């Protein structure tokens, strides 16, 4: 019995589309890139700009490790194309500390031991920055709900909530 295991549903051999130039502002600096149409913002940051602080945990919007701030709003950078972000202001974990001084959330994450392996941490912190800017979470229960898009397999959740509460109090 033969079974066709090809992955592509249509089997069309496509010619490679032209790369596209895109200009972004990343951590307050303008950058110009030449990317494939299907280059995600995540891959653009990690592979093209060497900003590997933004993590790839699933590449499908299921874990939150790739969370960055676009125009101050938290999004999953794995589910948007770099070309779609033309002209956007993007803040990654590398852009949170200013002049060597940690962002209050970064300090709070250290203070409360809000991570273990550190791989979800960039996404957690960017997500928390977005959460604080939204101003919708006041109670621990609200923080838990609105931080549920960031999976921490090490299980640091209670410490993450405590860290965010500390940063909220100080901001």
């Amino acid at each position: 019995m033969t079974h066709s295991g090809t992955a592509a549903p249509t089997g069309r051999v496509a010619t490679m589309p032209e790369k596209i130039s895109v200009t972004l502002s990343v951590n307050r600096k303008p950058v110009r890139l030449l990317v494939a149409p299907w280059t995600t913002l995540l891959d653009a940051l990690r592979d093209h700009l060497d900003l590997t602080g933004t993590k790839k945990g699933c590449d499908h919007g299921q874990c939150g490790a790739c969370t960055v701030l676009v125009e101050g709003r938290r999004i999953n950078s794995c589910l948007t194309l770099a070309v779609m972000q033309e002209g956007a202001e993007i803040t990654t974990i590398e852009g949170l500390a200013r002049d060597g001084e940690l962002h209050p959330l970064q300090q709070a994450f250290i203070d409360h031991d809000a991570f273990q392996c550190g791989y979800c941490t960039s996404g957690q912190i960017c997500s928390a920055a977005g959460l604080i800017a939204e101003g919708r979470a006041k109670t621990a229960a609200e923080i838990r709900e609105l931080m549920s898009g960031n999976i921490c397999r090490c299980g640091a959740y209670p410490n993450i909530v405590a860290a965010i509460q500390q940063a909220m109090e100080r901001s």
Partner: protein
Amino acid sequence: MIPFQYTRANDVADAIKQIATDPSAKFIAGGTNLIDLIKYDVAAPTRLIDISRLPLRNVEETATGGVLIGALVPNTDLAYHPVIEQRYPLLSRSILAGASQQLRNMASTGGNLVQRTRCFYFYDVATPCNKREPGSGCSAIDGINRINAILGTSDSCIATHPSDMCVALAVLEAIVHVVGPAGARNIAFADFHRLPGNTPQRDTNLEPDEIITAIELPPKGFSANYSYLKIRDRLSYAFALVSVAAALELEGDTIKEARLALGGVAHKPWRSSAAEAALLGQRADRAAFTKAADWLLHGAKGYGHNDFKIGLARRAIIRTLSQAARGTPQSISDKKIR
């Protein structure tokens, strides 16, 4: 994943023109579902037409007392819009019950309507699926079907529509504004999504060359007596096993109007006029809610792993109607179901 081209649409007319010239192209707005599907080789467009910059981001009250929501309004913005929070809190709560805040920040109102099923077999290109590959067979019927449908199924497909927002829009009887090559038309929400029948590859009655421009909410928002209850396998960031949107208009204890829809159980948000009629003029009590639940679940059929959904849905309907009648809608963050 196959390579694709990328173009940007300048306006709605340009978007329609672009898609007309390339039938294997797809519109992209928020991208949260489409990019996911492309990466899994479930969707294989040769071109993406970016409509995310079209001027469809307003939420405005209409002359007739309703609200017109631009198709590109992000889910979060819609959920937190003061008019929606005050007049249509059911819609707000249903949106916030779905996905994560990051995804809601990206996902568009129009895109939410056309998101595709989460059926495991639809997503796994190594298995037969009539929705993905018409005629290949439905693997879910005799497979892992815990998350699959119990209502309106066919021998070809038992997939569900995964949206939470759409369950509320069904209850609110929203109107979908679309534009295509032949001009603009409106689609009643009940007519927007389809049942699978023998064409499960078609989720909606939107034509491939049409674009959603807006969602119109009629004036009635049921802001006093409503609830959205979502039951899932973990307490957040998971798709519904069963969800219920309930909206009541009460005069004292008596039900003047009732709207009821289920999510996670069918190929579309599931309503039944008989269920809603059964509530009219009745006292808002458990007996009436039970009758409505029985009507709404009339003809429900399990496929093995999802048999429990019938009984679960029945109890969830009664509970949600009770919450709506009491005026104590289910909280999003307090996970206790009161």
